[in-house]
């Protein structure tokens, strides 16, 4: 995780990392906003309808350097527990809604559809 900062090339306004935890987070946001105010060329291509795909290209370009680190196997207990927690928070309400939809749409959608839709998003 430490090499994140060195890899970062495009954005200048990364929030300070966790080493500076003694600063309240509000202050950090104020700092960031000041930085952007001075940067007059802020509104760029990806907010304008005249540059098709600029937004998507920007998104992929800016995230790609982090892609490998997203997958770097950090087998920590937190990841495991979070997976279990979010799985149930996602599926149990989906099952409940599928029951509601099952009754209201003349049985067109059921549990299988709800689970597959959740998996499709994933």
């Amino acid at each position, binding site marked *: 995780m430490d090499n994140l900062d060195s890899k970062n090339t495009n954005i200048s306004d990364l*929030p300070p990392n966790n080493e500076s935890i003694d600063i309240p987070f509000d202050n950090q946001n104020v700092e960031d906003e000041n930085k952007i105010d001075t940067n007059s060329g*802020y509104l760029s291509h990806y907010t304008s309808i005249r540059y*098709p795909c600029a937004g998507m290209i920007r998104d992929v370009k800016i995230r790609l350097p982090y892609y490998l680190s997203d997958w770097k196997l950090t087998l920590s207990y937190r990841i495991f527990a979070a997976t279990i927690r979010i799985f149930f928070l996602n*599926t149990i309400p989906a099952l409940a809604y599928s029951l509601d939809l099952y009754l209201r749409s003349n049985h067109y959608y059921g*549990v299988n*559809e709800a*689970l*597959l839709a959740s*998996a499709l*998003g994933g």
Partner: protein
Amino acid sequence: MTFFFSGIVFGVLAVQPISIVGFTGLISLFNYTTYNIISRNSQVPYLSFMCWVAIWAAILHWLIAIFNLVTYVRYMTNFTAEIFGFYVGAVYIQKGVDFIIDDFRETSTKGFMSVLVAFGFFFSYWVLTHVSQSGYFTRTIRDFLIDYAMIICVIFWSGFAYIPGNLRSTNIQRLAITTAYQPTVSTRSWFVNPSDLSVGYVFIAIPFAILVTALFYFDHNVSSLTAQAKHYPLRKPAGFHWDFFLLGWTTIIAGFLGLPYPNALVPQCAMHTDALGQWKIVQPAENQVPTATVTIHKSRRPARQYSLVKIKEQRFTNTCQGLICLVTMTGPFLACYALISRAVLAGVFIAIGWGSIEVSAITRQALDLVRDPNHMKIDDPLLQISRKKIFLYTLTMLISFGALFGISQTIAAIGFPILVLLLIPFRIIVLTKWFTSEELNILDSPVASTLPLDSIGGLPDVLKTS
């Protein structure tokens, strides 16, 4: 194999893997309202119609992503996000109550059993999640409780209805399941044939597609924003355009498979970020300077504060939960799901719905209005503005919520997405006339910090705090 490839799109490909994408209440509302409208003409094959809606909607999603129109999401503030969060919470609770009423329709014994299970579930889930925010037990136990609260409660209260004797003999309604890996309508294959639809209806599908797109434009982006809200110390950049483009793909795949279209879920996204948080004890300032070596007795130490220092941003949680969904579609797991009673699902609805409402700004402001001023925290920023203004602001939010909630009870629910999108210009144009910018700075704030907002062009000038 199709299942595997269609699965886990957002976990693997999204720029924001923090957003949990799944099947949600609003799309359920959209699907059955469309069904009610379409089924008036029994000639129309419903799933083929929904497939065409998905095709048009996907095209609109791609156009929006290509022409950078997602950028207007930057005008969304907490005003809109909080009303929407409150609305989603209220719909959850309403559905829960509906389930209980359905049990009462069968027999009153089932009804009362259902009330017992649902509120038992709600109470135990509420206690478990609140203990985790309290100072009881140790950090490890508290983390355990919040991570497994949902499954503990589901297992306990589902089992509760099986306790032999009076409880079991109530025989309350359970979740209906069908054959594993087969569509619920057993006569169809997974692939919906769009050519079943007559040409006229292909074009009738367009207005429905516009409404789905409007709904997802709002729902998906507001969920992604709240998952990256200001108080989370996120370090990896966001990308709203790309994710909206991907959402077009999941919509069209879902259309062809005859599924309800998935999108990012309002309470679940923020819960995901919460689940990935790392908390550390931050030493009070005076403790950091080593002074005389006085050993302080444990009980005399100042209370130590935990603070959120890091979010584990990765793709495992999102991808794995999608894969587990696929695994649980197999027979044995489906049989487990079939043990869950409808009353437990009612409890889940009420518990999650209340979770949203409890932390909502609407609730907080309403409570502040009735609180004795002497009991307000001295640094509460709301003290800087007159109560009349807080009252007006809260009332505006409540009326907006009431309009959203009202429309979704009728067949006009189909127009819900337009109404919810109107809240954004309402905030920018009307609210700025009713309140001064100082008041709005205190009452309202941008949802996310500058890092996620960078993708959509940063804060607009209207919302900048001077």
